[in-house]
């Protein structure tokens, strides 16, 4: 197929994916869009939401639609790194000889749901996050690559704080997005109840496969982004740093520390995918503005002033966007 045709079909493919997912997941359009963007971009997602709002169902449905193997890892305080990555086991071969065999862990899937990642110990968290970063596992000097596309959606429960090991900022930076899954609206809740009364199984059908996702990823890389947009994304990330010379009022007043350069990479990469997802063929400032929230909210730490003024991280990000646009 001509590349042009493939580009044209990109948004169609995404529409189909969304359509199928909506068969199993009610509402949460923004979350679904962001998850798709993250998958196509090659990033991972940290999802925060109360229990029972469909986090597992989303990933499971996604795996069906994308025809990708799915695994769910429930993180508990006693979870060991080998429980995630896999370990070598001793077994008898057909000749009865003892040999080592690597038993792959649940991480060896294309779509992984790391549930309540903040409940595991930092060691287990680190093992998980290392795989997320490198897309490979090294056990006993043997390296095992994870098949692409590889996507991890980690979850955190916003309520439960006792007995948790909050992810350090450096680890948080490895997630492309942090998405906030809200409680469904009343009408959505009604639809969920009605739907699950019929069946609890996911009814979504497969519309794309892994190679297609990879193709889409390559296509998205070719989406043009003019310098003005790139500059805007960089200024937005730089504006989160109060220690920089010429720091704006928002950063100085409300932010304790700002986002890393990964945020800038995430913004541009995701913006290119987003443009194609919405049927555009260029990155725009509107794309950057929309992606600023999921990209930055887990990468900046607000200060006491924001807390005392009851400003959430998203509120501060909104102020940053206004400040950067005003300065433009």
């Amino acid at each position, binding site marked *: 197929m001509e590349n042009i045709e493939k580009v044209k079909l990109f948004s169609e493919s995404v529409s189909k994916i969304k359509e199928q997912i909506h068969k199993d997941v009610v509402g949460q359009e923004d979350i679904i869009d962001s998850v798709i963007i993250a998958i196509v971009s090659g990033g991972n997602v940290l999802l925060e939401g109360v229990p029972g709002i469909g986090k597992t169902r989303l990933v499971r449905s996604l795996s069906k639609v994308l025809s990708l193997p799915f695994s769910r890892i429930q993180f508990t305080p006693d979870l060991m790194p080998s429980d995630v990555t896999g370990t070598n086991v001793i077994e008898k071969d057909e000749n009865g000889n003892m040999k080592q065999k690597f038993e792959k862990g649940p991480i060896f899937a294309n779509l992984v749901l790391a549930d309540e990642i903040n409940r595991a110990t930092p060691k287990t968290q680190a093992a998980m996050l290392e795989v997320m970063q490198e897309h490979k596992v090294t056990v006993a000097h043997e390296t095992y690559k994870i098949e692409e596309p590889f996507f991890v959606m980690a979850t955190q429960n916003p309520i439960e704080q006792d007995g948790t090991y909050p992810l350090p900022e450096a680890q948080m930076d490895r997630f492309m997005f942090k998405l906030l899954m809200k409680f469904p609206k009343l009408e959505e809740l009604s639809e969920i109840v009605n739907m699950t009364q019929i069946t609890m199984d996911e009814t979504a059908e497969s519309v794309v496969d892994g190679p297609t996702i990879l193709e889409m990823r390559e296509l998205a890389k070719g989406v043009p*982004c003019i310098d003005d947009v790139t500059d805007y994304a960089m200024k937005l990330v730089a504006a989160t740093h109060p220690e920089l010379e010429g720091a704006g009022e928002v950063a100085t007043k409300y932010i304790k520390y700002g986002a890393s350069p990964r945020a800038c990479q995430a913004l541009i990469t995701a913006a290119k995918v987003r443009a194609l997802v919405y049927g*555009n063929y260029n990155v725009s400032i509107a794309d950057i503005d929309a992606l600023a929230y999921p990209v930055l909210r887990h990468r900046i730490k607000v200060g006491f002033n924001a807390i005392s003024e009851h400003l959430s991280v998203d509120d501060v990000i909104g102020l940053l966007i206004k400040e950067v646009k005003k300065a433009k």
Partner: protein
Amino acid sequence: MSERFNEFKKKMTIEVLVKALLIGLSVGFLASGGAILTLKLIGIALHPLYIALIVAGGLALGAGVFSAIFFPLKPSDLKVAKRLDEELGLNEKMQTMVIFKDSDAPVMQLQREDAVSVLSTKPTKSVKFRFSLVVLAAFIVTGAVFTTSHVVPVIDHTVQHQTPTDPPYILDSWTEQAIMDLIKYINSSEAQPPAKEQLVGNLEALLKNLKVDGVTIPQMQEYVENTIYMNTSSINRVNVGDDIALALSTADEKAILHISSAMLKADKNGLEKAILELKDILDSDGFMVMAPRIHKQMGQAMEAAGIDKTETDIARQLYRLSNLIDFTAKNESRYATFMASIEPVLNEASRRVPEAIIEEKVNIAVKDYVNDRLVKIFQINPPEQQGPQSGGHNNETGNNDVGDHTGGMGTGELIMGSDDVILDYEEGYVQYKDVISKYLADLLALYEDGTLPEEYKDLIDYYYGLLYGSIKADEEGEETGTPGSDGDGTGV
């Protein structure tokens, strides 16, 4: 670029063109109009050629400003794209299309198609024509300045100084009649004809001047003061008695001193007696010695004093007497024939000279009366000095005037003609100038009758020599000439 894009670009180009034109014209209007208006306001009138040159210069400046604004601001494809993205909400589609116009990537081809497709749905009027009200206002204001500069006339800053006009003087009939009455008085007075003629002439000249149109009061005062001055000068010219008396006061011969004294006092009888005293001196055998002596002291003294007033009766009489005494003495050897020749002349002189002295006093009296009347008629302050002060008698000064010199009465000020008031034993409080001649005559009389010793003669000579300017205070011993002449007066 697409056709629609070019349409937008054309619209934006026109916008910049209009803006640059308005600004250029505004600058041109301000420069030329401001210059012309400024010059007119400060009063400089310009030739139309110069105005045209200034306007041309302003337009040239405006053209320069237009170019400086239009070409840099002329919208490029990227500027147009940026503005389209901003105003039409195209999310950087246009800018991406322009920047990556040379890219053959599949996505770029689709992007271009998409951008063109989206833009085609936007009419050109969806981009509003940007018009700066400030620029428009500036154009209107500068246009008004330019128009005003051509309409307003040159402001004339010449200040018309109005000299304060003096109040006019109008000669009324009463004043004219008063002057006419004065003329009648003069003509009917006992003054000598030359004196009358001078005084009447002066008054007629005054009347003539006052009848001229446009005479002001200060001018009238000046005319009257000049008339008073002229009256005094005229009488001084006519009266020679005192001049002769002062000239004769340089003599040693007592008889001549007596004549001088009597003349100064205007003592008619004394003058008769003093002239006839010469007869007694000559009526002896020593006439051949006395005659030249008398001639020298009398005739030559008068000549040395510059009294060349042979027109006057007094001078003529005395010159004739002096010359005849000398001539007869030289040509007659016998006393009897000598006396026979000079006696009639002596007698005539003794009669005529005193009469003339009295007549001169009448001249002065008439002149004083006329001057007093003029002061009263015109109600002016009497002039302090009647005429310029200068030394000697060869000038038209008032009686008793002498030149500026030091000495006299120990004050260092001019005494002769001074207005200093003294207490005279006969006259009471008078001005010194009015009695000084009387004092000189009295001193001479005292000297003649022996009351004053010989040695006082030199003192008298010196004192009156200073008064009359014949001696300078710092030139003691240089006593020459008659009293009153500059630097060469002699003592009395």
